[in-house]
């Protein structure tokens, strides 16, 4: 089981240490770890599971903060990693983001949270709803109160009822003036288009997000019109397995607020909404590059926030790129980013220009990969359709809402 958790800032400073068991871990392990991680070149990120001379380390990095956990005995490594991810999620939820300052400013809350989340190296309470009831998140009101009265406690003095209920994710005795529930389909499209322009992989990772503000203990049933297109699914613990196994219906008692009810995956899609066609030709030290972008299969909604990004190869010494629409930025780390926004009706956006190669190099051998970003509101490109949402066990009728959106995930075009 985990013995110790360290939080490291992006400069390697140990911001927090929390010993979990009687077997104390000296913080010198962090120095060892940091040395390892800075000695690695760029592309060689440090492994998430490392065997140090004295301990096994699990580490994840979130927004510059390294979460490091140590153990000396065999345990499922994914358990350690998954727990650290959960800690990071809870902290960033509480503190409204993660960075060095915000953790130092709220170190007491971080300590209290860690103490609740893990006991003797084994996770204790990781359900955000219960944690929220036990330790109040910092907010403006409590901050002002503490300034004025100098005395507020963020530790609740009663045990949340949910700890003992059979639906531990739901706070008991909830009352909302307006009962409403919203279902969002948020989809990410992953695609790989190879150097011949062939679509070799195209799939959708989607999340059914539910934002529920319902009183009492409601029982919800959600069904899809075409569940057969789903390749695989993952559920929030609140989803009952039986109805899904038999009829592919989601039956659940929702937590309060926003949560991910289910994630799904739809494979082997045939179409992408946009096309990106890069062309690179190099000759005697210079290299001509042009990228064309356009709508391929009109999704019926506006394609927004279109961005094309790529890294200039090492051998490029300077680049001169212009676009007939949108702006082109070349950052210090040789990342070139072309933000297009919406595609205009009348013309096809195009970026072109020359790359000057370093001296002595005639031709560009390596080819950059273009990462494409876009966002389409109001449509789920996987084609998944909700059939209906039934609410039971509700004191008052509730308002139901539905939305969908698709973004680009790992959408890559090779040149």
């Amino acid at each position, binding site marked *: 089981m985990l013995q110790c958790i360290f939080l490291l800032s992006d400069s390697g400073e140990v911001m927090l240490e929390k010993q979990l068991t009687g077997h104390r871990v000296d913080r010198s392990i962090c120095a060892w770890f940091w040395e390892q991680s800075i000695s690695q070149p760029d592309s060689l990120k440090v492994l998430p599971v490392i065997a140090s001379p004295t301990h096994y380390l699990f580490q994840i990095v979130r927004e510059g903060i390294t979460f490091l956990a140590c153990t000396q005995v065999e345990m499922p*490594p*994914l358990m350690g990693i998954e727990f650290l991810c959960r800690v990071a999620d809870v902290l960033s939820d509480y503190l409204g983001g993660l960075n060095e300052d915000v953790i130092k400013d709220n170190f007491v809350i971080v300590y209290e949270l860690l103490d609740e989340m893990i006991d003797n190296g084994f996770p204790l309470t*990781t359900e955000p709803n219960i944690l929220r009831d036990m330790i109040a998140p910092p907010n403006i009101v409590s901050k002002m109160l503490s300034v004025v009265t100098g005395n507020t406690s963020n530790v609740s003095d009663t045990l949340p009822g949910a700890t003992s209920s059979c639906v531990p994710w739901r706070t008991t005795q909830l009352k909302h003036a307006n009962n409403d529930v919203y279902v969002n389909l948020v989809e990410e499209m992953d695609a*790989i288009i190879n150097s011949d322009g062939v679509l*070799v992989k195209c799939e959708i990772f989607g999340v059914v997000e539910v934002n529920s503000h319902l009183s009492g203990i409601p029982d919800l049933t959600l069904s899809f019109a075409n569940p057969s297109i789903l390749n695989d699914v993952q559920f929030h613990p609140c989803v009952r397995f039986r109805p899904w196994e038999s009829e592919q219906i989601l039956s659940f008692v929702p937590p309060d607020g926003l949560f991910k009810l289910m994630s799904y995956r739809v494979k082997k899609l045939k179409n992408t909404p946009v096309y990106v066609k890069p062309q690179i030709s190099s000759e005697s030290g210079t290299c001509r590059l042009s990228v064309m972008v356009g709508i391929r299969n009109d999704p019926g909604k506006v394609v927004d926030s279109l961005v094309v990004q790529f890294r200039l190869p*090492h051998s490029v010494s300077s680049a001169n790129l212009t676009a007939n629409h949108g702006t082109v930025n070349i950052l210090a780390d040789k990342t070139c980013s072309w933000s297009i926004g919406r595609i205009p009706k009348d013309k096809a956006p195009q970026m072109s220009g020359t790359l000057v190669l370093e001296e002595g190099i005639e031709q560009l051998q390596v080819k950059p990969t273009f990462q494409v970003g876009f966002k389409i509101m109001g449509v789920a490109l996987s084609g998944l359709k909700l059939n209906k949402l039934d609410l039971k066990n509700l004191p008052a009728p509730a308002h139901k809402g539905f939305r969908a959106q698709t973004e680009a995930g790992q959408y890559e075009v090779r040149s």
Partner: protein
Amino acid sequence: MFTQFSTTAENFSKASTMVFRIGTDAHLYDDPDDVSISPLLDSKFDSEKCEALKRLLALIAQGLDVSNYFPQVVKNVASQSLEVKKLVYLYLLHYAERRPNEALLSINIFQRDLGDQNPLVRAWALRTMAGIRLHVISPLVLVAVRKCARDPSVYVRKCAANALPKLHDLRLEENASAIIEIIGILLNDNSPGVVGAAAAAFASICPTNLPLIGRNYKRLCEILPDVEEWGQIILIGILLRYVSARHGLAKESIMSSLLPNIFSSEKSSESDTDYFEIKKTYEIGIQDPELVATVSRSYLAGPDKQLLNLNDSDVISPDYISSRFTSSKSDENVKLLLQCTSPLLWSRNSAVVLAAAGVHWIMAPMEEISKIVKPLLFLLRSSDASKYVVLCNIQVFAKVMPSLFAPNVEDFFISSSDAYQVKALKLEILSSIATDASISVIFQEFQDYVRDPDRRFAADTVAAIGLCAKKNPQVANTCVEGLLALTSPKTVNSTSGSMDDEAMVLIQAITSIKDIVKQDPVSHENAIIILIRNLDAIKVPVARAMIVWIAGEYNSIGNIIPKMVPVILRFLARGFPSESIETKYQILNAAVKVLLNSKEEDFHTAKSILNYVLELAKFDLNYDVRDRARVLRKLLSCYFSSSGPAEKPDNNEIRLLLAEHVFGDKTKPSTKTVNNRFYLPGSLSQIVFHAAPGYEPLPEPCSLTESDMVKGLEEPAQAEADDSDIDSGSLNEEGSYYSEDSVTTSTGIDDESAASESDNNDNNTDSLINFSDVSKPQEGTNDLSELMSKGALESWLDDNDNDNRGSSQNVAERIPSARISIGDISTRIKPKVYTLLDPTYGNGLKVMYKYSSEASTISPSLVSVDTFFENCSSEPMSKLSMSNEDSESSDQGRYIYLSI
């Protein structure tokens, strides 16, 4: 003016951060000791105490030692404010071990808090009290835990379960039985949350006490989907161990590769359809049965042990093994386990999914394993860190059963945002799951990867291409063409970036070509020609050396090469002094090979080239080159002796034969270096490639018998206190008198020694007892069972007595009241054998001991031990002595002479 402006801007930003940080604990973290902490701690206001404690916490966070405040802090544990309490607890747990005496001051308060109305207070008190880790208070903690285990609040019961490992960690023998009893209670709890925590306690305290699980097996399976995710991970592992220990492995699963008759079809005595069915499904998915067997064996025995016992496993009788198997189709328990873990494949927690997939991998029938593929692949979309771990596990699955993942090639296509390690893993998986159908798609992908800006990854891709071509010879030609393009002068010269990176790709490309050509040199004649042509343009020493080697090695293939090679050699010989050392070696070798292979007409040319090169090498700066030249000249002296034959000498001269042998022999295919270390899926050891402390392979299948279960029910504590008594008790069906004894007197083991002579026959593993004065060692078992079937208990006891007289030294009267219950003694039930001396440390002598299944006849308070000697070396051994160190009497030593 500008400076002024900038200062105001600075002030402004400072001010704004101040505003932002108001109300947080920022100032406490930044300057924790800007006020004196002691008076604050003694303050009567909770808010001031809080501030002091927060300052202390900040100092702890920054790594400073503030244990000197301990007495003052401990006082505050009595505070009514929950926030103060919480902060005090945080401090206390950090330092309690260092200040035990002061920590004791807080115990009374904890005791009071344990009776509090508020479950939160009770839970905190218990957690802190258990966390203090003082031996003195452990009885108090035990009482507290016992009380809290029956608390009405689920949360408190959960904390009680978590407190158990803390208590166990103090290693107090007297508590062991009580702790296990409490685990039993908590495992039986109605709340899934408590069961999860109890499972974690079970796994860390007594993972071998499987009877405890057996009692609740069905209920635990049913409750599994409702247990919280962290508990699920642990509970899945426990249930898997239980099923394999109690009911054995499934014969339809991959573990069936351990069934001996699967591979050797001529031995297939069972000709029932069932068996053929297994064999058929077997052949569908698996390409390398040897590997599967290795993997399954290491799941059972652990790779390190498995390497040692590699030969033993062949000796174990087939019946013995097949009795360890059950059917996952008909066995209710196995079915139940698979059924209740399959919905967990939909969990959002990647660790749960992997654990559930591990169960299916080991237990599910082979045709149903494909169930785990989609969930595993879905995990690749979770965080980067878990992606790596999941890929490490998929890699093993894909190697063992490539057909599983073969339809999902595109899931392993590399995205430019992947970390290098992830890319490398994906490449390896891709090359192992490539099939005839998918190979073209994969090659298309590889072509893109080769042009990736990360050159190290490109080099790995080139290596993967080589692997694929070796596996699927029909694509070898395409591969070689692609690889040759990488070595073409055009590519090599116009490369970009650092030369080292490019060199890496080039070397890898030539290595891959070399490997492919080696398989079938004749059909790749063209490739060799092209490589030799490119030699001029290739400057990287390692690459050059490799090409020269290829030229020398295949100098007689086809029609063109034999004409080319002497020309090339002449050219190389001219530039010999400027070549790098490794190229020089290869030029020397190639020149010799050409000479040995040369036909009449070329003989003179070849000879003069070699002569020239040797002459140059003689004056080389590098002594190794000089030495080689000297050796070669001596070896081939028949060519160079002044009066030597002008014609090619006869083939029968000894030196020449030697030279032919060294240079002419075609290189043997190198032995495959496969990573043979496999650990259970989802374990830490599988990721770090060594057995982490606490790693346990699956328990011996069917090692848990009905009697263990009964005994476990009666005395869960006994079973835990000494592992061995599970084994020694296996003969007793109802009573467990002797196993009890063995616990109480386990220190007395040394007082008795039973030595035995083992004649190292292949029945070794089957023999139960081998005594020095029993003439037919093997028949001891049979006698026993025969006699017992007649029910002649008395005569058996007499017989047994004789045996013991020969073995144990202090023979006394047997005790007539000895109670022995007779069960079904068969070869199936075997006491566990422990290794006393390993062959590697004992100069080939292997000594094993085990607790004899018979009760000692001298006194019920003694235990008899059987010792086996085995000579694993080829030499005879003599003067083996075995002495008793504990006993005072000096004549305990016994000498045994072995003549093997």
